[in-house]
């Protein structure tokens, strides 16, 4: 069976997950993103690639940063952007996801950027569009449940490549709440596809999926051991809103064992970069001294994120 994200020419038709995408496509996205970074320095920060196209931001789950960066990316490509405030929309009145999609297609949508609490919702939309013969409409997954957040994974890869150049000689550690993190899943798949030989995950047993070693990662519960000589430290946000029951004694205790402090960071290589997908919980996952320190590349991640999303949207629209 063909990868549902690719069209019959092997081009990207939707971006739903990193899983199953060949290295050539990931590399093509990163290569395409590079010239888009320069647009931000122009007097007119706009390219005409998506002129006349309508991009619908469908956020069934709250998000400020991701929605905003998708909106900026689409606007810099000259698209018309429509943000649907789902909590006050028809969904609250009982409309199904696919009925919402059908209605927006009738309004000549060209692209959907969707975030949903249910894993697989963007797949359902893509399959529905294919069944309706609407192959010119594209879907970008902006985060679905615990499953995937592919553009975050890609912008993280762009950031790593920017600072470290070669993926094939890196040791990378992902730290924190692996259990609830769709970001971590996309990061691990992208790192593995791009040839990173050493991928480590660090976190307490209660926040670690039991079968995560099957993804080809080394599991550490001792943060200092896990950070030993790594080139890249990718922190995750503690997903308080997704936690049910007592997975953690307290944020203070989490910080004591898994918060990134200068003292723990000293275990990594001196030139290690520190990343965080935001929003940060200072004093829970990361100490302010590290978040604002010389190793942090957290704000460049945000800037690169716009270029990566512009690249993805352009590639989909041109496929």
């Amino acid at each position, binding site marked *: 069976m063909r990868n549902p994200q690719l069209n019959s020419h092997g081009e990207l038709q939707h971006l739903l997950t990193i899983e199953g995408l060949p290295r050539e496509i990931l590399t093509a996205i990163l*290569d395409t993103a590079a*010239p888009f970074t320069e647009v931000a320095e*122009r007097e007119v920060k706009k390219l005409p*690639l998506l002129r006349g196209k309508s991009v619908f931001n469908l956020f069934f789950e709250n998000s400020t940063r991701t929605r905003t960066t998708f909106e900026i990316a689409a606007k810099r490509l000259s698209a018309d952007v429509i943000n649907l405030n789902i909590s006050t929309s028809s969904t609250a009145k009982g409309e199904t996801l696919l009925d919402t999609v059908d209605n927006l297609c009738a309004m000549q949508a060209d692209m959907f950027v969707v975030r949903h609490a249910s894993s697989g919702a963007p797949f359902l939309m893509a399959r529905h569009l294919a069944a309706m013969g609407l192959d010119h409409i594209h879907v970008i997954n902006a985060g679905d449940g615990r499953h995937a957040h592919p553009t975050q994974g890609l912008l993280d890869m762009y950031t790593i490549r920017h600072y470290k150049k070669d993926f094939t000689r890196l040791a990378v550690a992902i730290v924190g709440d692996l259990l609830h993190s769709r970001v971590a899943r996309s990061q691990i798949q992208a790192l593995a596809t791009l040839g990173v030989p050493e991928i480590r995950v660090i976190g307490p047993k209660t926040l670690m999926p039991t079968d995560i070693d099957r993804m080809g990662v080394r599991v550490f519960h001792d943060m200092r051991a896990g950070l030993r000589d790594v080139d890249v430290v990718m922190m995750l946000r503690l997903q308080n809103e997704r936690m049910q029951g007592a997975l953690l004694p307290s944020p203070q205790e989490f910080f004591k064992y898994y918060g990134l402090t200068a003292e723990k960071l000293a275990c990594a290589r001196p030139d290690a970069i520190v990343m965080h997908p935001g929003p940060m919980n200072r004093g829970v996952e990361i100490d302010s001294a590290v978040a604002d320190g010389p190793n942090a590349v957290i704000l460049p991640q945000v800037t690169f994120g716009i270029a990566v999303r512009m690249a993805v949207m352009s590639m989909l629209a041109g496929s």
Partner: protein
Amino acid sequence: MALPDAEQLCRALAESIRPGLHPDTALVGIHTGGVWVAERLHATLGLKTPLGSIDVAFYRDDFNRSGLHPQLKKSDIPFDVEDRPIVIVDDVLYTGRTIRAAMNEIFDYGRPARIDLAVLVDRGGRELPVCPRWSAHELALPPAQNLQLERSGAGILTLRLIDA
């Protein structure tokens, strides 16, 4: 068909441009062949303003048909465009669509004082009202043929005719 020597055309082009230069004139080469020619002109003319280069892929009018080509280059305009005389440099002028895209892109950096066009070879076949101020050679070619500028490992420029 005997093609002219590209290196010789570069020198001739530089000499025809020289009288039209202003102290602030900046050259902008179009990737990839146009940048090679612009590098030659920039050195021969001894211009002070650093050389600019653009990849017009983001401004092409056939994006909806053919998408983005895979090897995009970064545009680099290392000078202030506002009120500056600019010369767009390309290797081969054909339909004029690339030049239209290049002008659109330059205007996104500011309002230039004027824009001129210098090309190594004008092969005819225009689809837009574009006319070069300087062209070193004119050669009428049928649509079935493409004229391409190539650069050897030693940096020597040559023209080559290929079937489209």
